[in-house]
Every structure is written in C-alpha cells, then in structure tokens.
C-alpha cells in the first residue's frame, strides 16, 4: 500500500492543481449565489489528501535509496527533454513540509479571510503555489526547476496583487514580479549554457559530470554566477531583496506560505546545484559574500522596522542569507536543515503576528503593546517561533546553526562570527517585536484585543506543537549531531549570542529604562536601516533610471527617426505632387513650349553620337 503511494508520489502536485481548477467556479462572477467559501473547503480537502499521501509515501521511502521516475515530455531532433522525478526521503519530506504548511495556512486563511469575497482567486493561487513547490521538490531536472520557478514567479505576482484596488499592492506586485523575473532570466542563461557543456539537465547527471569535469574556469564561473542569480532573486538576497518587503502588502495567510516556504524554493535549487557550483571557487565565494552581506544587512534592517510584517520579512532574507553561506561552503545538509527549521519557525511567527493584525488592525509596532495578558496563545506562539528560529538549544534552528557553524569553525572562523552576529541580531529583532506587541502598556489600538478565532489559533498551536517537537523528530530521524563529537565552543557561543541578543532587547523594550520610541544617537543611521538602505532610491537611480532613459530614447528614436524617415517619403511625395502640379499652367502655349523642349532634348540625345562625326563647330559653313 505504502509502496503504491510512493510510486504515485507524482500525484501530490496534481491534488493541488485539481483543487486550483475546481476552485475557479466560485469566483464571484460565475457562481453568484453560494458565496466563496466552498472554494476554500475544496482546497483544504485536496491539500489534506496531498499531505496524507506524502506522509504515507515518506514512511515508505525512509531508509530506502533514492529512485527516479522519468516521464517523457518532449523529444525534438537531438534534444530529449523528459521530466525526471526524484523519489527520496528528502524530496518526499519536502512535499510533506510544503503540503503541511499549506494545510495550516489554508485553515488559517478560512478564519483570516472571513470578510473577503476573493476566496476563489486566493485559494486557487495558494493551490498553484502548493502544486509548484511540490513539483519543484520532486523534479530532478534543472530545466523543469526553472519552468516551475517561473510559474511561481507569476503566481507571486497574482497572489501579492490579490487586493489590486490598493495602489501599494500594485507596485509591490510589480516589483515582486520584475525582480524575481530578472533573477530567473539570468538563471535561464545559466541553464542554457550548462546544457552545451554537460549535455544534461538532470541533477544527478550534473553531479556526476561535475565530479570529473575540468571546464574552463572563466566559463564555469560565469555559468555558476548566472545559476546563483536566480535563487538570489527568489530568496530575496541583496541586492534583489526589495520585492519581499513590498510583497508584505499581500494577505497574511499567503505571507505564511511565502516567508516560510516559497522563498526557500530558490535555496532548494541552489542546494541541488551545489555540485556544479563547487567547480568555481569564485562562485562559492560570491555565494558566501552575498549570503553574509544579506544576513547581516537584513537583520540590521529588521531591527529598525516599525511594520510587523516587514520586521519579519527581513529576518527571512537574513536566514536565506545563512542558507547561501551554507551552500557556499558546501554544506548541503546544514542548508536543508536550516530551510526546514526556518520554515516552521517563520511560519509560526507570521501566524502569531497575523492574528494580532487581524483584530488590532494596525501593523505599526509603535501603536501596539500590552497584549501579553490578553493574547497568551499568540504570545507563546511568537516566543516558540523565536526560540525555534534563533540558536536556542533544544529547538530546531539551534541544531541547524550549530551544524553550519561547526564546520565553519575549522575552515572559515570569520563566517562563524557572521552566523553569531546574525543570530544575535535576529534574537534582538524578534524580542523587540515581542516586546513592542506583547510587552509594555496597552495603547489605543490594542486597548481591546480578544484572542482570534479558533481557525487562526488552531493552526498556530498545531504548528507551535510541531515546532516544539521538531528536535524530537530530528533526533528520531538521527539528524541531530552526536553528543560525543559536538563542538562545545561553538554551541556555547551560539547560545550566548542568542542570550545576549534577547537580553539586550528585553532590557531595552521590556524594561522602562529607555524612553520609547528608541532613538539612536545618529538619526541618519536609524533612517538608513529603517528605509532599508534606501534600496528603492538605489533602484530608481540605477537600473530603473537607466532602463527608463534608454526606453524613452528608443521610443523617441522610433517615433521621430524611424517613423520620421518613412513619413518623410510620404511627405516628399505629397510635396512633390503639390508643387509639380503647377507645371500644368493652363497656358497652351506653355504646353507647346514643353513639347518643343522635349523634342529638342530627345533630338539632341538621339543625334549625340553623330556630333563628333560632323563636328559642326569646326567645319564652318
């Protein structure tokens, strides 16, 4: 039975796709009488089926070698594009994570989207995401990974732009699409160039090829940089990070999915490409550099945000930066573990915060406060998410970070320092958010704040439970490091960095020693972080400016030079006709004159060959 489920694992993405299609009739324009709710229930059912399917298949695949199913797709001339599916515990586990998170997000959305009519659109897009991510997890081909990434980019555009009557949503969706598109297009260049070198897009075959290959260093470096650019946009890494900030305009339930899982799609492709990337030391250094800059920069920015969702979205960028560092130093296992622990922890944080937004309306941290006594479940969920995200010993991310830092300790100690700094900064940022929401005195917006609907609380507590059990799960899967060869120094440093961040933040935001809102000595510095290094201005002054100018110039050239030349021909003909018509003077004597001139010229022309023979000028009469 389980084997059957394992062999039909390719059906997992299809559930969601069927759900997405079945949802469409409940768009307000088609079924007008029942309201949009059945759309959500259908999708919940389909996601639940996919989740159960995945869980059963996961049991069957555990401790089994990875298999591959090949589905033929297209064979043209010498190019054979077939879709290979990798069935291993990692890929099936990834589909379980995706469907599980999506299941929780969808239950959450039933409560959160209570007052909304757009369920059909919302749920079909969520289902599209689930389908895309499960397909991405299963597919074992770089080409199809690219295809799915592009579909997900379109999905992001539509999902962020759900409430398109708001102007900021429209600009946010635009930026999310274009920024990710740029990365994807660079990725496409890499994908195409890689085929000519390797002759295959299958990840396994690519890894085999990479083991014995000695390609031209410059070529492989360029290809690897292009391959990095795609995940760089997907994972919201510097400098392609602004879209994640603006994507916070979308509805919270989709944010749960995006912040926890969707951004990890880029990291997934990156992890799969790691064998290729190791061929180029420059690309690996670039990965580490991008990851470190993003991790430190984004966690600094997160501290300076006053919007709850944005404060969390920058932490996502920071943790994806850590994943980049892990891949850049060749630690796929640490990267995968980090993706897993980050996904559940960040999902939990967003769920907690979404419930706060749901009935306090404002997202402004400076207008919230004092919710601890009245929102204990949300507060505990937030604390659980915080503990699971930073290096707090028994919980998930501690092991991932430890795993990462442990290997770096011997090779690149300065990267351990970055991990510690990011950990401390994230701890500071999350405790700050906690302190501003749940600590202090109630403010006007948080005077009356009942706990949210059960539909919001139940998925949150379920995820909280899973997050707290994650270490046990990891232990049972023997993914935790052995106590014997545990690096005590790194573990203690990691622990103390978290404690340091939490304590400092707790003193500042939970104590009454410093007046709120907190002001840094340098306002310019504070603004620099608050406006995320003025990235919109940077975009506007560099790429957007250049493209805008060039397109204006091109449009001008098209309108005036190209069109002008063609129009000039027409105009010249008109002018010619208009001016030459005056040759028809109406004077018949003038006509006679023209006839005469014509005849004379024709005569002169015809007799020209004979002039020299007669030589009329010299002979005389």
């Amino acid at each position, binding site marked *: 039975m389980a084997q059957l489920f394992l062999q039909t694992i390719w059906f997992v993405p299809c559930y969601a796709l069927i759900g997405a299609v079945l949802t469409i009739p409940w768009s307000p324009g088609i079924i007008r009488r029942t309201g949009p709710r059945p759309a959500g229930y259908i999708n919940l059912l389909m996601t639940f089926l996919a989740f159960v399917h995945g869980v059963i298949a996961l049991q069957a695949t555990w401790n089994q070698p990875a298999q591959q199913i090949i589905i033929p797709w297209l064979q043209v001339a010498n190019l054979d594009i077939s879709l290979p599916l990798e069935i291993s515990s990692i890929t099936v586990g990834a589909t379980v994570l995706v469907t599980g998170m999506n299941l929780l997000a969808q239950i959450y959305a039933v409560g959160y989207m209570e007052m909304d009519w757009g369920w059909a659109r919302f749920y079909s897009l969520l289902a599209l995401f689930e389908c895309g991510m499960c397909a991405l997890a299963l597919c074992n081909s770089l080409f199809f990974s690219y295809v799915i990434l592009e579909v997900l980019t379109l999905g992001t555009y539509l999902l962020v732009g759900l409430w398109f009557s708001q102007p900021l949503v429209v600009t946010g969706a635009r930026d999310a699409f274009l920024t990710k598109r740029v990365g994807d297009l660079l990725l496409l260049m890499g994908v195409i160039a890689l085929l000519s070198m390797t002759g295959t897009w299958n990840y396994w075959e690519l890894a085999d090829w990479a083991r014995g290959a000695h390609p031209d260093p410059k070529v492989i470096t360029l290809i690897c940089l292009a391959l990095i650019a795609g995940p760089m946009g997907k994972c919201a890494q510097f400098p392609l990070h602004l879209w994640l900030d603006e994507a916070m305009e979308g509805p919270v339930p989709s944010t749960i999915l995006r912040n926890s899982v969707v951004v990890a799609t880029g990291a997934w492709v990156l992890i799969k490409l790691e064998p290729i990337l190791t061929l180029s030391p420059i690309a690996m250094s670039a990965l580490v550099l991008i990851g470190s800059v993003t991790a430190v920069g984004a966690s600094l920015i997160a501290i300076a945000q006053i919007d709850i969702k944005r404060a969390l979205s920058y932490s996502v960028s920071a943790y994806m930066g850590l994943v980049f560092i892990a891949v850049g130093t060749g630690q796929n296992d640490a990267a995968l573990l980090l993706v897993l622990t980050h996904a559940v922890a960040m999902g939990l944080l967003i769920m907690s915060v979404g419930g706060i937004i749901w009935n306090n309306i404002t997202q402004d941290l400076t207008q919230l406060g004092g919710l601890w006594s009245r929102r204990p479940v949300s507060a505990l969920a937030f604390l659980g998410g915080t503990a699971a995200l930073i290096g707090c010993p028994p919980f998930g991310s501690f092991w991932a970070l430890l795993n990462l830092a442990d290997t770096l300790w011997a090779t690149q100690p300065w990267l351990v320092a970055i991990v510690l700094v990011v950990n401390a900064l994230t701890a500071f940022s999350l405790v700050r958010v906690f302190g501003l929401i749940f600590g202090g005195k109630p403010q006007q917006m948080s005077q009356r704040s009942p706990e949210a609907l059960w539909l919001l609380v139940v998925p949150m507590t379920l995820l909280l439970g899973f997050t707290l059990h994650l270490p046990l799960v990891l232990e049972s899967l023997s993914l935790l490091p052995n106590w014997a060869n545990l690096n005590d120094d790194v573990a203690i440093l990691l622990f103390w960095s978290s404690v340091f961040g939490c304590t400092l933040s707790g003193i500042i935001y939970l104590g009454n020693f410093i007046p709120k809102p907190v002001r840094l000595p340098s306002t310019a510095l504070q603004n620099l972080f608050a406006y995320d290094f003025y990235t919109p201005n940077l975009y506007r002054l560099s790429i957007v400016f250049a493209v805008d100018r060039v397109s204006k110039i091109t449009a001008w050239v098209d309108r005036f030079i190209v069109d002008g030349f063609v129009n000039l021909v027409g105009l010249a003909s008109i002018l010619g006709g208009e001016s030459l*018509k005056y040759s028809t*003077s*109406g*004077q018949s*004597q003038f006509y006679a*004159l023209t006839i*005469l001139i014509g005849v004379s010229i024709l005569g002169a022309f015809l007799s020209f060959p004979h002039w020299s023979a007669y030589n009329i000028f010299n002979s005389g009469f």
Partner: protein
Amino acid sequence: MQLEYFLLLAAALFCIGIYGLITSRNAVRVLMSIELLLNAVNLNLMAFSNYLDAQEIKGQVFTVFVLTVAAAEAAVGLAIVLTIYRNRDTVDMEQFNLLKW
C-alpha cells in the same frame, strides 16, 4: 543651288513660326504662326521632292495634301477662336489659362 539652302530657309521659317506660336498673345497670330510652320514644312517637302525624288515627286503630292489640310485646320481654328471670343470677349492667350492644375 543646293538642297541645304532650302532646308535651312525652311528651318528658319519653322523656327520663326515656333517663336511666334509660343510668344504671341493674340490667338489669331498663333494661328498665323501655325500657318508659317506648315509652310516651312511645305518648303521642305518641295525641296526634297525636287532634289531627291524628281521622277515621282511624291513630295509635291504631300504638299498638296498639307495645303488642303492646313486650310481646313485654319478654318476650324478660326472658328474655335471666334467661339472663345464670343464667350469671353477677348482673344488674349493669357486670359485662356482656366484649365490649370
């Protein structure tokens, strides 16, 4: 006497006719210039007939035809001029530029 002198005279007459044809403002003088042209042609025909075709004198036959046709043409021409004159009370060629562009 050579053929060339006749031809040159005829050409001169023809050119005078052309000059008159193009420059005259009086429509009747235009008709007169046309008569000069035809007569220049007749001179040519006679000269050629005399010097080149003295036996069959086809040129002279041509000349007779041209004379008769010229007479008819002049008559019709004068009729046209008269008709225009009736309508417009003038025979000035420069007043007849109605059919332009």
